[in-house]
């Protein structure tokens, strides 16, 4: 007898409808993913599953309940905090302190010049050295980074994708020079280029050669580095860029399939490398959804790998790292972030992650301080040591709701995966730009929900703190870091054998031409003290540098505000402006330097356009000079600089200079949005910035202020 037909359910339904004064059928709530959540789930909801198998066990097909039989009861997840800043010396100190305080694995954050294959002395990266990660120019830096950290014992994760060849080569050589054979190195290299083109934006070469590089690394590590994960297939960045959980899940697994094919096309057997594929997901605020996502990911991957013909059990098992969501954290009332991160961490644990990073409460302000990093780490230590969550494997198994949600999510993701496969796979889709647009659409919807108040963010659009606390921030003097790095590069260059280095770099170029495995000549070049930038350029000679074409969504933001008073007020202001000035307010929205955070810029651009502005969208990686030329030629009224990677104190004054160099009488006003610590406001205002819009800004309010400032400025003429 099913539940629905039994009397108990009917009685419950009556009571429910009486209490809520609603029909049960109307009492659903829709998630971002478009899944209807019912107010109650029953035994009936465990039936007719497409993917989930009801009686499965942990460590067994289809691995929904976890990759291992014992999970945390035997060994808890690895506390792996992502960190890196300034010089190798400073980051090394920071790592050692963290390891002493209970952290178990390392995870290196490189700075943006390193990510994009530029040495610290390159003019293009003036504002970015050491700012958002650690600067690594040569193997000497890499050796310093792991000074007194034995690489045969410490597992090291490295987020590196664009410049993956010289950086992985440096790691291998640093190990060797510590006396550790490469076969003993353990850890993970991210090496996931597809999501770079979609959302993370630290690509260097075009998609095809980039995919070849990925495959080369899988090939090399599968033969020579048996303890090292050759790739970390990442959905995390997609969610951070705005993807809902279905998109994150589907695109990540579809990426994974593409990498499997790339590796197989090198003649590798699937079981030779599949056990060393690893994954990375974000854990946001939707508590049960995130748990279901990790369970669904394992379930689907097992099926996918079986279809690829994998025979070894380890090839079928998805192992993952997780990071709590940074984008759910706010600049306003920042201590709330500790609470958000705790719930997210619990979600990740109940979902069965293998390792975890928890964010610091100053996430939306700057890189963490020693103090905020300690609290973030303790979030996990408390979970492991005080709450008892490690004592049972997959405690939510059998939950009517969670099992049902796991299957729902799997089905939705599978539909998208099937669609992508039919269209020819993820590389093709990425080149056409479709996944990126879908993610931007989802991000824009989320922004509209927050700006319209239909989604509550405590301390931002409701329950605001009347007395915002001021918090300490980590300050990095990028000029000092840059000077230090330049000196170190010089001394390496002075003591190396120039001829041999040139020859080695030529070999790298030739290997690219001859389509040979590239990691081998890169290791040789790095050993001889070629720099990360030099190796990247040697490859660039053959592959060129990739420039992304940017598409934009339109109408998504405006649609949420039909009939909204504030929105219509701005629309009217725009029309009035046009009537007075003969054209619409025209704003150039730009990113400057190597900062690839484009979510905010894209959302602001499309929202402003929806309100009637003419918005010029600059490409990524412009120099201040490029921006000034663009702004003046298009005679824009204002430039909106979106800056999140802490380059603002160098790049904004440079932009002002560039503007007046081209046109000393320029009337173009400049405003700045993104991550700007309060401490820097005065500096920016002194440099003639007209307004600053920090995280959590309501875009309709931004637009109104911008149009008022432009009008004021014009009336001064």
């Amino acid at each position, binding site marked *: 007898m099913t539940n629905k037909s039994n009397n108990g359910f009917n009685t419950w339904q009556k009571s429910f409808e009486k209490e809520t004064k609603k029909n049960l059928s109307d009492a659903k709530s829709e998630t971002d993913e478009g899944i209807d959540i019912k107010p109650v789930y029953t035994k009936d909801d465990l039936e007719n599953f497409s993917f989930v198998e009801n009686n499965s066990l942990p460590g067994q097909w289809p691995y929904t309940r976890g990759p291992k039989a014992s999970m945390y009861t035997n060994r808890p997840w690895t506390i792996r905090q992502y960190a890196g800043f300034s010089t190798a010396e400073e980051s090394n100190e920071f790592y050692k302190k963290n390891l002493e305080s209970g952290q178990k694995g390392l995870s290196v954050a490189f700075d943006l010049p390193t990510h994009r294959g530029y040495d610290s002395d390159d003019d293009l990266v003036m504002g970015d050295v050491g700012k958002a990660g650690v600067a690594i120019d040569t193997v000497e830096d890499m050796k310093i980074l792991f000074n007194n950290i034995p690489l045969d014992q410490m597992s090291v994760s490295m987020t590196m994708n664009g410049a993956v060849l010289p950086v992985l080569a440096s790691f291998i050589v640093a190990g060797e020079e510590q006396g550790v054979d490469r076969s003993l190195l353990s850890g993970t290299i991210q090496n996931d280029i597809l999501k770079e083109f979609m959302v993370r934006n630290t690509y260097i070469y075009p998609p095809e050669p980039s995919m070849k590089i990925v495959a080369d690394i899988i090939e090399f590590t599968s033969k020579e580095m048996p303890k090292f994960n050759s790739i970390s297939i990442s959905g995390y960045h997609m969610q951070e860029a705005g993807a809902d959980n279905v998109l994150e899940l589907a695109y990540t697994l579809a990426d994974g399939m593409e990498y499997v094919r790339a590796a197989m096309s090198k003649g590798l057997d699937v079981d030779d490398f599949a056990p060393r594929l690893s994954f990375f997901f974000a854990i946001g605020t939707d508590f049960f959804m995130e748990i279901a996502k990790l369970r669904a990911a394992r379930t689907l991957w097992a099926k996918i790998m079986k279809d690829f013909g994998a025979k070894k059990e380890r090839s079928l098992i998805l192992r993952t790292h997780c990071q709590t969501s940074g984008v759910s954290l706010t600049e306003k009332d920042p201590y709330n972030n500790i609470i958000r991160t705790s719930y997210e961490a619990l979600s990740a644990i109940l979902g069965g992650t293998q390792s975890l990073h928890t964010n610091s409460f100053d996430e939306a302000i700057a890189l963490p301080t020693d103090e905020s990093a300690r609290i973030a780490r303790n979030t996990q230590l408390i979970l492991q040591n005080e709450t008892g969550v490690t004592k049972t494997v997959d405690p939510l198994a059998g939950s009517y709701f969670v099992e049902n949600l796991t299957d729902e999510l799997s089905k939705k993701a599978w539909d998208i995966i099937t669609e992508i496969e039919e269209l020819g796979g993820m590389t093709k889709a990425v080149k056409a730009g479709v996944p990126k647009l879908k993610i931007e659409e989802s991000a824009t919807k989320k922004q509209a929900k927050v700006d319209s108040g239909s989604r509550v963010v405590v301390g931002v659009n409701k329950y605001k703190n009347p007395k915002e606390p001021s918090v300490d921030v980590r300050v990095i003097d990028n000029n000092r870091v840059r000077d230090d790095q330049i000196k170190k590069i010089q001394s390496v260059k002075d003591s190396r054998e120039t001829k041999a280095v040139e020859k080695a770099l030529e070999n790298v170029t030739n290997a690219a031409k001859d389509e040979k495995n590239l990691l081998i000549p890169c290791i040789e070049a790095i050993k001889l003290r070629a720099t990360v930038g030099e190796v990247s350029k040697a490859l660039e000679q053959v592959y060129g540098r990739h420039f992304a074409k940017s598409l934009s969504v339109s109408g998504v933001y405006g649609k949420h505000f039909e009939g909204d008073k504030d929105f219509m007020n701005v629309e009217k202001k725009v029309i009035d402006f046009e009537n007075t000035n003969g054209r619409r307010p025209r704003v150039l929205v730009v990113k400057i330097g190597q900062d690839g955070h484009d979510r905010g810029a894209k959302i602001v651009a499309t929202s402003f356009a929806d309100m009637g502005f003419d918005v010029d969208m600059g490409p990524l990686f412009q120099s201040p000079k*490029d921006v000034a030329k663009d702004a003046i030629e*298009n005679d824009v009224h204002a430039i909106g600089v979106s800056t999140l990677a802490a380059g603002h104190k160098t790049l904004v004054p440079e932009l002002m200079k560039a503007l007046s160099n081209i046109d000393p009488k320029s009337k173009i006003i400049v405003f700045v949005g993104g991550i700007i610590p309060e401490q820097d406001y005065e500096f920016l205002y002194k440099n003639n910035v007209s307004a600053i819009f920090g995280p959590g800004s309501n875009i309709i309010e931004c637009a109104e202020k911008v149009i008022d400032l432009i009008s004021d400025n014009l009336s001064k003429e």
Partner: protein
Amino acid sequence: MELIENIQKGERAAIAKAITLVESSKDSDQQISRQLISELIKKPGKSIRIGFSGPPGVGKSTFIESFGSYLVTQNYKLGILAIDPSSQITGGSILGDKTRMVEISKNPNTFIRSTPSRGALGGISMGTREASIILDAAGYDFIFIETVGVGQSEIVASNLVDIFTLIVGPGSGDELQGIKKGITEYADIFIVNKNDGELKIEASKTAADYKSALSYYKKLDELEKQVLLVSAIKQTGMEDVIKTINQIVDQNKQKGIFEERRADQLEYWIEEEVKNIIASDITKRLSSKGNISKYSEKVMKNEISMYEAVETITKDTLK
């Protein structure tokens, strides 16, 4: 005017401000703009104006980036007017052309201006013709005008330029049936883009299709229309494009076609301006008299016929 001097000196900000004036919908701006254009037009520069049109996504912007980069390395100065098709219901737009012309937009020998089309006919916005006169006065060797080609628009666009180029993609031969005769009259060069990788065979086939179709429609006294194969992404075929352009310009100049076209375009422009003025005048009169609603009421009540109403209103308006 100081503005004129500064334009002639090639000052970026002056050129940009002048283009704003000619695009402006404000009466006072339009007056200055007329003076400005009247002055500039007296001393034409040496610019060759080239139109690039084609269906969305064939690679116009990529081609312009690629061909433009080639030209600037040959020390040409290049002005680009990109008419961005992305207009919205609200009237706002996102102008993303620069993201497709990254390299060339950095070059000091280029000037790139994007304009929202706001749905104007032919994807040509108000002021495009005037903007090219300004760039000409500022000393640019080539002026590129990029428009999205949708049916009729070629005619409008081709009236602004000395050479009109249609960019098409591999496998577009079928569409030729639809375009047929009209196209041969407006386009001087056909560029089949994406002649690379897997698309190469298809591209060659398309080029052959175009060639045979074009020779079929060729008038006796006309020059042979050129069909070129390029890859914007791989930057191949660019020398052919510039060679062909130079050839056509030389030939047209020799035969007097070049000047003839410019004269025709002037005629067309004058006609257009006159029509615009008359049309806006009539619109004003119509709305001030309120005849339309008055008479349509009568039609509704069956007091007079539809055509009687039209005749009466017309007579009264033109009085």
